[in-house]
């Protein structure tokens, strides 16, 4: 049981990170459901139909998701605010409908037979991505993303390719979501397209909002709280959506300046560029 909870918590951490990465360059993406689904099905097809082993399948699934992200992303990342939200939501719906309509992968009925993922594999994934994110946050790409987020035009005037930056974060976010999806599928053994719908995308974004967007740990916190706490407090589990919603409301009311004003701590803390 505990293994189960931890597993889902880790998956949610990965998903929350995937939203976070895209948010780094200033875009709020509700498409993680789509990328998770793509990753899951891709890996599933590879292992079940083509007898790949788990590890390469998962990686390829991640890669597949990012490729789709790049393809769709090019016109998408140039959109802002509400438009981006709409298009990414639309993406989630479209992917789901597409998956439901392909008999090859089971259609609405679902796709099964995926095995091989267990708690250790997802823990490894979390660890690896955690390290990568940490490394990244101390590096220069982080600063580039900060500038893009803070003032796109000025960033461009400094030579930063804003579209490329946004595409990059979009693709990386999709990669992480794809991997999460692949691992999820191979743990659950059986999935249906409706597992990866709009509600999931919304939840994942809300994890990040709940936990805070100032750094990479906020999403972890949000994911952990919403996944683990309900398991240990019955009442939370029963009223999970409401409690979730109310907590978000509370958090947002307390910080009415909005989440897009978040910035990574650059000064007081450790730091930006490791000064000597």
């Amino acid at each position, binding site marked *: 049981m505990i293994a189960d909870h931890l597993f889902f918590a880790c998956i949610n951490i990965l998903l929350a990170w995937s939203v976070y990465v895209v948010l780094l360059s200033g875009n709020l993406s509700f498409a993680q459901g789509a990328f998770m689904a793509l990753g899951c099905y891709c890996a599933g097809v590879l292992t079940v139909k083509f007898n790949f082993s788990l590890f390469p399948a998962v990686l390829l699934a991640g890669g597949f998701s990012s490729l789709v992200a790049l393809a769709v992303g090019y016109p998408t990342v140039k959109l802002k605010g509400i438009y981006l939200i709409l298009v990414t939501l639309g993406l989630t719906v479209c992917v789901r409908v597409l998956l439901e309509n392909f008999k090859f992968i089971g259609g609405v009925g679902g796709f099964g037979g995926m095995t091989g993922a267990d708690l250790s594999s997802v823990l490894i994934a979390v660890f690896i991505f955690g390290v990568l994110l940490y490394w990244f946050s101390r590096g220069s790409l982080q600063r*580039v993303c900060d500038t893009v987020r803070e003032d796109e035009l000025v960033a*461009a005037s400094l030579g*930063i390719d804003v579209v490329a930056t946004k595409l990059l974060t979009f693709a990386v976010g999709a990669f992480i979501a794809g991997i999460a999806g692949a691992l999820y599928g191979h743990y659950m053994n059986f999935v249906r397209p409706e597992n990866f719908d709009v509600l999931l995308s919304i939840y994942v974004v809300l994890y990040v909002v709940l936990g805070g967007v100032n750094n990479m740990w906020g999403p972890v916190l949000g994911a952990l709280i919403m996944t683990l706490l309900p398991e240990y407090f019955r009442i939370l589990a029963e009223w999970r959506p409401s409690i979730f919603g109310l907590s978000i409301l509370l958090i947002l009311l307390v910080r009415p300046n909005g989440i897009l004003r978040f910035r990574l701590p650059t000064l007081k803390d450790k730091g930006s*560029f490791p000064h000597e």
Partner: protein
Amino acid sequence: MNDSKKQKLLAIENLAKNFGGIHAIKSFNLDVFSGDLIGIIGPNGAGKTALLNTITGFYRASSGKITFNETEITHHPIHKIALLGMGRTFQNIRLFKRMSVLENVMVARKNYFENPIQYFFNRAQHLEQLDQSMDCLSMLKLADKANQSAASLSYGDARRLEIARALAGVPKILLLDEPAAGMNETETKQLIEDIQIIRSKVDSIVLIEHDMNLIRTLSDRVVAMDFGQKICEGSAQDVLSHPEVMSAYLGVDEGEGNLS
């Protein structure tokens, strides 16, 4: 400097920019040679900032041609133009407030996409960047404030940081939009000195300003604009006493008053 050897750095031909029915720039022509410091003056609404924005790619030219260093940049995206060697500042200060002074400059230094992996791992390169950024800061007398938050700077310092940041990319041409706006006399004097030092680091400077003293002291050539057009061009002395220029600014008749 030998005139005949001067390279034409920036060539603007018949540039026009319309917004719906508004002609912000009409048929503008200008040549900037290597080593020039050109001042652009004109009343508010003359189109000076619009010109700067169009040159740097913030606005898309409606017609005309802009050539920079032998490359046509008329419809290039902003970052490409910047990478070709243009640095600019803004009329209202647009610093990255949440970053430190040093970081504002550091982030301007490099094209991260040139070689991100190498940059990620290469410590020496990072240190070199650090040095060069500190150099930019020192040039503008901001070195001692390197680790301060950009938001905490005084107005004059903030304007100077903008210039330092624009310099960080080692531009061939530096475009300054009213760098002395809001500065008092002392600060302006300091700015004039700083710009004279900066001249040795960049090829050319194009300077939009209202402060006539600054224009007169620094410019090789002055261009006066009104209603989106160039009304005259020449030495500071000539332009500032040109009747059309005076009427544009002051609404005076010929012979009355003198801007210089």
